[in-house]
């Protein structure tokens, strides 16, 4: 006798994308329902500061060079409208919608 898993009980399928950091050249994978910072933290990369993980403190700022993303709410104090147009974002508020290429900022 065993337990039978009911339909719909398994985790919903998420897509997996490859994220490339240009310098220092690094790649990691990130699921479509995971933020870039969460994926980096899980992979053990310490290239970006880990702060609040929720878009308030601004320490995880990066620039997205190419690819499609879903942006979660993040503080305007750290990413201006102008910067947003140029791909700047808080890594803890970005979910990938395609493979992405990122540029790191000076680790302040």
């Amino acid at each position, binding site marked *: 006798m065993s337990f039978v898993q009911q339909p719909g009980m398994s985790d919903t399928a998420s897509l997996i994308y490859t994220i490339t950091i240009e310098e220092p050249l690094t790649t990691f994978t990130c699921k479509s329902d995971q933020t870039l910072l969460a994926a980096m933290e899980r992979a053990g990369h310490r290239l970006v*500061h*880990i*702060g*609040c*993980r*929720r*878009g*308030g*403190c601004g*320490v995880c700022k990066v620039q997205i060079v190419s690819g499609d993303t879903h942006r979660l*709410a*993040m*503080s*305007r*104090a750290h990413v201006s409208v102008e910067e947003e147009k140029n791909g700047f974002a808080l890594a803890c508020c970005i979910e990938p919608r395609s493979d992405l290429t990122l540029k790191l900022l000076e680790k302040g």
Partner: protein
Amino acid sequence: MAITGVLRSALMQLRVLDMDAAVNHYVNVLGLDEVGKTEDGRVMLKAYDEFEHHTFVLRLAETAGMDFIGFKVDSDAYLDQLAAETQAFGLPCEWLAAETDQPGFGRRLVVQMPTGHRFDFFADVAMAEDRPMLKNPDIWQKEPHGMRAQCFDHALLYGPNSAEAVRYCTEVLKMAVVEELLAPEGDGKVCTWLTSSNRMHDIAILEYDQPGKLHHVGFKLEDWSAIGNAADLITINNVSLDAGPMRHGVTRGLTIYFFDPSGNRNETYAGGYAHFPDMPVRQWDFDQAGKGIFYYTRELNERFLSVVS
């Protein structure tokens, strides 16, 4: 009454980036109760063991951080005295009429602190419907939920000119310095913990280059087992953990730091010793700051000094 003038920190308005996520966090996870909404859509909250109409307000905004912290004082007459003493000290202040933006609150004196924070003072607040019982009181009327936060406790503020702010708190507000973290060189202070009663602290102020920053807002829990329950809820709800469960060397409080969904740091705090006005100040050398903040690991993590909202 032995405690006069400023009684305690008892109100905070916080900016959040996503109201639904914030309400879910503060109500379902932290365990506050929703009192209602203001006409402009802010959400008023309180903890089950507080008498005030509300003590915590969420405002939807484009940035995280705090709008102001409020202190309850013992009488309306004291507000007039405080206004005069604040002007004599040299800080700008102004009046807000009763019921302007905080339903249930009497008039408030608004003081702009040299650290870039706003302090509000009020004497009169409507009594909440859900509050501690007064006659043959049980320990609660409605069963507490979530982390079972009992009350708004304190905040750690980061900003410039902290020495001047501390001087205002001690000379005008008559708060006592409970503990302080000494600067690595000279006779300055990096951080000062202040109380207006014998609660461990109402506020702490840390010297920082950017004005008006919030390091954390602290809520009181009953004891160490409540801290354990809070830690379970942090994992179950995928809350962003900062540090803990642990103990502070400073104040000896039992604690966890974590972040709300907008990146504002919260603390759940229990224990600590009682402060009395005749007690001397306890001091920490800067190279012992790790033990002062994180008593078990004895290491200051990088986030403590650099991550604020």
